[in-house]
């Protein structure tokens, strides 16, 4: 009898925790749509902030532009080192000593808090190299932040490619780079792209590192490397923290979350496509 009650309680615990997570996500999205939805219109997306204090009226166009500039720059900086490191780990180094060390370093890098990356880039870029608070510094900080994400996801996508292809190519005497270019990479490209998208989403939502390296309360976000930029997450923080406009804060949060969920879903469908390719 007592046993049966314990069993029921346990089952209750498992169900409640599972469903709670579903409820939380739904609650977040529904609440954001409810509070922010009414304020989203073409003006909000396409105009600059206006009113006094700045942000009570107008829109968030420069923040959207700034965020796009930041993640684009982060990707441009990190994609080549990220992919080459992944290629080293999956094709060249394999289980060698150096690969082990690099794997460990990359893994540790993934655990470094993003504010610490901000701190580092502040000292290196903003102060020592004299870039000031700038798009370039922010892009570098975000690039360092997403580097391990790109390495790990691309490495895993490459490693998932059928080992027999490497065996066959090797026995023909062709080089690793030729095999990679003709067979392995095309085979893993969906998974790699999914990883890059995840990295982009991660960068777009990051606030702490750009708060100390790149973000300004108001800027035109023209794309000039040594100018500060506006960014969606930082703009949200300012709207709320400086008590400028709750309505615009909700709307900004909705735009940001919408953008990120879109990227996330795209990445998710690409990685399930990759899984189907691998099983084939």
């Amino acid at each position, binding site marked *: 009898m007592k046993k049966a009650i314990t069993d029921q309680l346990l089952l209750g615990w498992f169900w409640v925790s599972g469903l709670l997570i579903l409820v939380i996500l739904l609650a977040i999205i529904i609440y954001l749509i409810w509070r922010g939805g009414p304020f989203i219109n073409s003006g909000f997306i396409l105009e600059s902030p206006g009113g006094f204090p700045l942000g009570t009226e107008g829109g968030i166009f420069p923040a959207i532009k700034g965020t796009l500039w930041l993640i684009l720059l982060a990707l441009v900086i990190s994609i080549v080192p990220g992919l080459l490191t992944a290629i080293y780990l999956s094709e060249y180094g394999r289980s060698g000593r150096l690969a082990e*060390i690099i794997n460990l370093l990359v893994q*540790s890098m993934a655990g470094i808090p993003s504010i610490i990356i901000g701190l580092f880039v502040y000292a290196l870029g903003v102060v020592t190299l004299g870039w000031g608070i700038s798009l370039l510094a922010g892009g570098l900080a975000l690039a360092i932040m997403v*580097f391990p994400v790109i390495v790990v996801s691309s490495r895993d996508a490459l490693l998932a490619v059928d080992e027999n292809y490497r065996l066959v190519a090797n026995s023909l005497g062709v080089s690793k780079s030729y095999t990679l270019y003709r067979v392995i990479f095309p085979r893993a490209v969906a998974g790699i792209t999914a990883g890059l998208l995840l990295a982009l989403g991660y960068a777009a939502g990051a606030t702490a590192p750009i708060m100390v390296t790149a973000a300004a309360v108001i800027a035109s976000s023209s794309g000039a490397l040594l100018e500060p930029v506006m960014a969606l997450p930082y703009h949200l923080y300012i709207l709320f923290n400086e008590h400028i406009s709750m309505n615009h804060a909700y709307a900004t949060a909705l735009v940001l979350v919408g953008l990120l969920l879109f990227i996330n879903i795209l990445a998710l469908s690409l990685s399930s496509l990759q899984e189907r390719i691998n099983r084939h």
Partner: protein
Amino acid sequence: MIYRGLELKEKIISSIIISVATVSSLLLLAMLIFILRESWPIWSQIGVSGFLFGSSWRPLNTPPEIGILSMIVSTMWVAGGALLIAAPLGFGCAIFLAEFAPRPLAAILRPVINMLTGIPSVVYGFLGAAVLVKFFEVKFDLASGESLFAASLILAIMVIPFIVANSEAALRLVAPEYRHAGIALGVSRQYLTLRILVPLARKGMLGALVLAFGRAMGETMAVLMLAGNTLRLPGSWFDKGEPLSALIALELGSTTPAGSHYQALFAAGLVLVLMVIAVNIGINLLLNRLQKGG
């Protein structure tokens, strides 16, 4: 002749790949060394224990008072508290997904958990501050509802997806024979799960928890918007405080390079990184012991 060319080409390509991979991974060490360098005067002037255990933070006074005990305690409260809330829910959800969830529900839940990780920290912080803190203020009639507890609560939601994903993977790795054996014995599935599967998966589940702890310690925006940001030593979970990450984010912009305030923030950053690294190394040692124990 042709072989020589092909060989040369491959040699060039492989050395480029090796050098890029090595240099970019060494960036981690470069970061640590750079932060250590920037913070050096603090360590040599104030000393390690003075800095860690001093509870007064007035870096602009003359002479500056630079101690980060309050922030360290705040960080531990916030992250530890978040884990306290997240662990039962995260493990429960992982067990639910691995063992009990009906297939269609699991198929919805997994992407949902994935999406929760995609929502940025600033949005969690914003919602926490705008909804949760407001709620505390009204409900308990407080002047301001921010507290370490509020930060923990939101952080818990942020780290649950990591706990779920990693623990579920650990549970799924348990060999199916154990399940069959348990079912053959006629025990309930709950009993089987708790007494057999969870102990077998404990290494992975504990690892998930520690990973979450590391994330919670380093998390900045949500904490900064919810913890209340006072520099006093917090006496309980329901006090206000300012964790290390929030301290750095809030004050870095107002420092003058090479001033003691600036250096102190780098020292605080170094402490934060070392705490995160220590937790990760500690768990590895612990897990190795567990493994040897059987």
